């Protein structure tokens, strides 16, 4: 029994876990840079990284250096940040809304982002001053604002939030379809569709400087609230009885989640299933307590999305498949497994 005690309440994750997590992430990032339509030799990749990061000065081919540093590196880092951010958003929403099927797009963020993107690119809203990403970001926040206001007006519980999210998503998806049908030419419609399914090909360093801080802030906010997230296991009233200030915790966590998701969607489109499937897979692997679930979900999300990006680049030679298609191909069966595993639970 003492052994069991020690096992259940091992203080913090010991150092080797963080080292393991760091190494896994590093390996995944290296793989993301090495593997692609044109495979690059690992020693070239390492030389370029050494040159860029530490000014090592190895002689390398300048075209290779450009591909590695300007193209693949930011792409892989953004994939990692998005994967981590979406997985964390899923963890938070599933805990707070107490619904196993909650995902980061539940609150209308993704639908709003699409509408914003369409409004900017097709309707020319903002007169060219706004890019697709800023339009998407504004749309995402606007949609979430409407959903949150509706949920509040309906009584403010988690069920109301879910229902308001569904209503908001339907409305904004309808608006998106309407704008596309009314104004887009075939070329634009194709471009929008590609973006909607998730697309990392246009990613450059400035995108990293948005995605990485968003993911990091989200990660720290979740880490800070792991006990609060645990306290929601038996519902919001029980969390309050355990000393959790509902307004503050829900406000901070849902706010952070929304900002994180809005940032990711506006940079790369709405990549489905990561935020839904990764947290469940991790619950299965490391248990339901958030002290472990939060860091492992962030790591797994990052590695999963880097892997999905690699697959999307090499699946059909000479052509990039939308990354959302890859995550859905893996995610839909994963989702089915969750449904089956949750059978019998209410």
């Amino acid at each position, binding site marked *: *029994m003492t052994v*069991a*005690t020690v096992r*259940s*309440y091992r*203080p*913090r994750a010991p150092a080797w876990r963080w080292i393991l997590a760091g190494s896994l992430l590093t390996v995944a990032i290296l793989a993301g840079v090495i593997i692609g339509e044109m495979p690059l030799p690992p020693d070239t990749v390492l030389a370029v990284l050494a040159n860029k990061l530490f000014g090592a000065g190895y002689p390398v081919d300048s075209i290779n250096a450009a591909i590695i540093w300007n193209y693949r590196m930011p792409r892989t880092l953004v994939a990692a940040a998005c994967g981590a951010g979406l997985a964390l958003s899923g963890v938070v929403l599933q805990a707070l809304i*107490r619904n*196993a099927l909650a995902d980061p797009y539940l609150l209308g963020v993704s639908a709003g982002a699409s509408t914003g993107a369409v409004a900017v690119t097709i309707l020319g809203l903002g007169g060219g001053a706004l890019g697709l990403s800023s339009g998407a970001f504004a749309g995402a926040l606007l949609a979430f604002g409407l959903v949150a206001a509706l949920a509040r007006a309906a009584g403010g519980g988690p069920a109301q939030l879910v229902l308001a999210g569904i209503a908001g998503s339907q409305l904004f998806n309808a608006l998106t379809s309407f704008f596309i049908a009314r104004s887009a030419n075939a070329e634009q419609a194709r471009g929008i569709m590609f973006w909607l399914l998730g697309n990392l090909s246009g990613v450059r360093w400035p995108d990293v400087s948005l995605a990485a801080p968003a993911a990091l802030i989200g990660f720290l906010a979740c880490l*800070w*609230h*792991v*006990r*609060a997230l*645990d*306290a929601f*296991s*038996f*519902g919001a*009233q*029980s969390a*309050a*009885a*355990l*000393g*959790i*200030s*509902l307004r503050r915790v829900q406000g901070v966590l849902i706010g952070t989640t929304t900002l994180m998701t809005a940032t990711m969607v506006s940079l790369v489109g709405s990549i489905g299933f990561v935020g839904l499937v990764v947290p469940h897979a991790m*619950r299965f692997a490391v*248990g*339901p*307590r958030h002290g472990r679930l939060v860091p492992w979900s962030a790591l797994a999300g990052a590695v999963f999305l880097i892997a999905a990006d690699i697959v999307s680049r090499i699946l059909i030679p000479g052509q990039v498949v939308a990354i959302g298609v890859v995550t859905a191909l893996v995610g839909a069966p994963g989702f089915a497994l969750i449904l089956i595993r*949750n059978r019998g*639970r*209410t």
Partner: protein
Amino acid sequence: MRLRTANLGWRAGVRPIVEGVTLEIAPGETFGLIGPNGSGKSTLLRLIAGLLPPSAGRVWLGETPLASLSRREVARRIAFVEQQAETTEALTVRDAVGLGRTPWLAALSPFGAGDAAIVEHALCAVGMEHMAGAQWQTLSGGERQRVHIARALAQRPRLLLLDEPTNHLDIHHQLALLRLVHRLPVTVVLALHDLNQALGCDRIGVMAQGRLIACGPPAKVLTPEQLAKTFRVGATALTDPVDDTVLFRFRCLEE
């Protein structure tokens, strides 16, 4: 810890659910709340726990107004066991009881050996130590209820609020729980339906239609007239020849 309420009330819209409850409960006292379904017992407990904002009146813990305390400070003083609370998470019994330490742990402070010992102690108090590793979903109703009570004990409160804590328990565990809360050196307020159990409390309060209509020692409050009026039952007081305790036998008064 002394608990006081003054003119406490809560409304759902315009409908008063709890009204004008003034109450003083001494440190260490075990106070039973009885009353028919829907009379406002659970709502009153939630008001005392600070989980509902009162629409009238106030609550004091000792000399401190409840409203002046932060959620965490309240949770260090009061533990509340709801009538029902479920989870779909695959928590173990020990995880669930460990949640009781939440108000005592800062965001980044680790769950220490002291906390683990408190959790073990709470598990033993409700006789669940042998099932500490079991998953929540595999527990029976009574076992779940005992885990909830252990979680409240692990919170190390000075005021323990229990909403029908015995409704799923077998007779042994009902009696064991009542003996446990009696012996605890903390103030306990518990909502009960079994009037014979209520006889064992230091004092009881009778709720009807949101009001506290009677309050005092069980023998004074639980008169046949009171029982007929509030619960619509006829009661015969019987004396147990073993130790001369009084208990009731009930008849339904309506067809």
